């Protein structure tokens, strides 16, 4: 089955990102195709490489990045939601005249059309929110 995953909550504060991650891992292990993981609302905060959780805890961003590398996943962060919350890549940094960017490896910033496209393309679009 072709799956789209949507993450609506940020890391640590809510369990939604953990559940989405575990679901994605399980789906891949079962041989399903994950077409895209889309990060929206506070979910965009999963994409900052600047998070520094305690060493004895899971590293939510690294976990997503490593999963993306291993399975060639498309991790997409909504640009409008990202701008509000200060998640920037190199291009966005330059475009808005900011002095830094923070997007983590494996994530890319794009528009909401990517979410709609996932809805059209996938057999199931699965939301993980509050």
């Amino acid at each position, binding site marked *: 089955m072709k799956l789209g995953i949507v993450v609506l909550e940020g890391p640590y504060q809510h369990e939604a990102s953990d559940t989405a991650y575990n679901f994605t891992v399980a789906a891949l292990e079962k041989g399903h195709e994950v077409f895209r993981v889309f990060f929206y609302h506070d979910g965009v905060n999963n994409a900052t490489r600047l998070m520094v959780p305690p060493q004895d805890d899971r590293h939510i961003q690294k976990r997503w990045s490593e999963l993306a590398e291993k399975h060639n996943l498309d991790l997409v962060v909504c640009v409008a939601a990202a701008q509000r919350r200060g998640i920037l890549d190199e291009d966005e940094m330059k475009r808005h005249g900011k002095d830094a960017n923070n997007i983590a490896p494996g994530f890319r910033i794009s*528009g909401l059309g990517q979410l709609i*496209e996932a809805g*059209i393309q996938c057999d199931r679009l699965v939301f993980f929110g509050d």
Partner: protein
Amino acid sequence: MSDVKKFLYVNRKAPHGTIYALESLEVVLIGAAFEQDVALAFLDDGVFQLVKGWDTSELGAKNFQPAYTALGDYDVQKVYVERESLEERGLSEDDLIEMTYEDEDDDFAEKSSIRIVSREEMAKIMADADVILSF
């Protein structure tokens, strides 16, 4: 499966206090460009999004309620509001904003998009949707 899918945007949260309602609306507006079969559902505290007479002046937040009334221009013709959610909050259809669309098949007559449905009917609407976007 045909090229057009049934998209159902499910709105469950109050318009203020969190950003869910505003960002859900942004998805609907962008999604309109993809020419899918779009419907909106309002239930639980989500029904407050459609209660008329918002005043956000003291919140320091933008009043985005006019965007709901403009949804007809984005070809949103089906807005389902759950009766039980209204009643549980002391609300009725009279408390809601007007949402209309122009019916192409009826000489572009202006018609109400809002359909008050029971919880049981809402469950069927959800079961019938191809894609549920839950906010």
